[in-house]
């Protein structure tokens, strides 16, 4: 039983991170029908930026209470600029191209960003500075840390903020209108280009936040870390119904829990033949399963509400 609870907690933490990243995929897809495969790389660059800035400041003798927020701010602002630049340089010129063209471009941008990151930060694993207290708690036989609590709480608050933005503000309304019909939104005076740029910028900010969380959680980062994280988050978005914000959140958390429970029990289930390092297969079993049996995802309608 305590394994179950423990893995549930681990899954919730990992799932919160997936959910934040998945929102970036789903917002962009909802508004312009593009799967931005470079999004995982944006997250990676956010993590590495935080390492450089926070780590550098710590070395310069700054206290954690200042270096941490500075690292986070650098990651978020840097990624917002990166997301904006990606859209402007790579996708906007292809606005009227066949759907496959921007998709291939996204994969290309992913490779470009990975290699740029490798050139800047090198090929080695980098240690993520300890920005959050290491304190641990014990509840009902399950162990969890302050980092895990912060990740879940901050993710939940951020997602609530995003929902408020999309459903309560003028910008959110313009985003939903654009998702439903760009042509009509334009006629109503909505600057569709700006709305699309906003989706990229906001999605990238969420991705940067997720990147800092991943770094704090695993205490390590690498220029290739965005690839698997991006694929998992994409799976989460598909699981929830791509284009659906609530779906991305639920899909992220659900995928995290499926993975954690799978990793916890795979040894028992296969009589020790497969170990917990096979946890990655669960995400892709889920992806294939969803695509085969319910391609619109858990919460997507065929003509569903997007973004």
């Amino acid at each position, binding site marked *: 039983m305590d394994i179950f609870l423990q893995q549930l907690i681990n899954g919730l933490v990992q799932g919160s991170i997936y959910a934040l990243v998945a929102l970036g995929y789903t917002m962009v897809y909802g508004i312009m029908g593009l799967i931005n495969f470079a999004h995982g790389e944006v997250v990676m660059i956010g993590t590495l930026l935080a390492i450089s800035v926070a780590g550098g400041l710590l070395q310069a003798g700054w206290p954690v209470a200042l270096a941490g927020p500075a690292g986070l701010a650098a990651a978020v602002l840097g990624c917002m600029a990166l997301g904006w630049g990606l859209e402007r340089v790579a996708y906007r010129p292809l606005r009227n191209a066949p759907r496959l063209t921007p998709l291939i471009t996204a994969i290309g941008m992913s490779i470009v960003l990975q290699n740029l990151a490798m050139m800047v930060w090198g090929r080695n694993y980098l240690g993520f500075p300890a920005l959050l207290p290491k304190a641990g708690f014990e509840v009902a036989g399950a162990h969890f840390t302050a980092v895990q609590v912060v990740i879940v709480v901050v993710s939940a608050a951020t997602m609530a903020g995003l929902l408020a933005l999309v459903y309560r503000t003028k910008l959110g309304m313009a985003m939903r209108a654009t998702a439903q019909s760009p042509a009509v939104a*334009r006629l109503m005076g909505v600057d569709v280009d700006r709305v699309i740029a906003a989706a990229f910028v906001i999605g990238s900010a969420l991705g940067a936040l997720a990147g800092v969380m991943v770094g704090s959680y695993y205490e390590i980062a690498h220029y290739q870390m965005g690839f698997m994280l991006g694929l998992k988050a994409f799976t989460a978005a598909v699981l929830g119904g791509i284009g659906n914000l609530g779906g991305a959140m639920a899909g992220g958390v659900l995928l995290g829990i499926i993975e954690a429970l799978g990793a916890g029990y795979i040894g028992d289930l296969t009589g020790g033949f497969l170990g917990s390092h096979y946890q990655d297969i669960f995400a892709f079993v889920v992806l294939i399963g969803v695509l085969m049996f319910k391609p619109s995802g858990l919460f997507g309608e065929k003509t569903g509400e997007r973004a």
Partner: protein
Amino acid sequence: MSEVLLQADAVAKHFGGVRALRDVTLSIRRGEIYGLIGPNGAGKTTFFNCLTGLYVPDGGGFTFCGAPLVADAPQKAAARGIARTFQNIRLFGNMSALENVMVGRHVRTRAGVFGAMLRTAATRAEEAAIRQRAMELLHYVDIAERADDLAKNLSYGDQRRLEIARALATEPQLLCLDEPAAGMNATETAELRELIAGIRADGTTVLLIEHDVKLVMGLCDRVAVLDYGALVIEDVPAVVQKDQRVIEAYLGA
């Protein structure tokens, strides 16, 4: 004669070999209700699409409020003061009636991305004002009680009204209605007629595409007839009704 609001000069548009508009020249005066009629496929909607920036004309152009209308982007047409409704209703179905109208306020308000994220006092005040104005417009077209219903769940007549409210939200000088009475029964058409007359009385010029000839002749100050993309006549209803070419166009003689 009163001031010309919109002047179309030899507007031409073709799709491959089909000449949808052949050098259409007409002028709409400020404050009038101007009818644009013609058989199916005569080019009426194409004219609307050129005017609102959905299509770029292949020849000619528009002068609006005395300045050339560069029809390269629909949001600019909206900002200049031209709004439209659609023949086939194109609401944001998964948004509430109120939100549909609030989107229309977009062009007249300023707050941007960072305002929305930082929730400044100015942004919040602006959003409250948008909501209030949108509610007034729903009252104006008489569907205020449906404000919180999703647009796709409104009745057909109410959806037409909502489209008009959304277009009015952009504070247009020229409101273009594309077959607003299509599919309406006699009662609904009569109510629509009152609504359009009221909009004009409140100072908005109306350009009306309509198949219901009775509605057009009874409501419009002047009428233009298109046939095969070309202007047949532009005059007051009494003259247009008796014109031999118009009768031929409609009867296909």
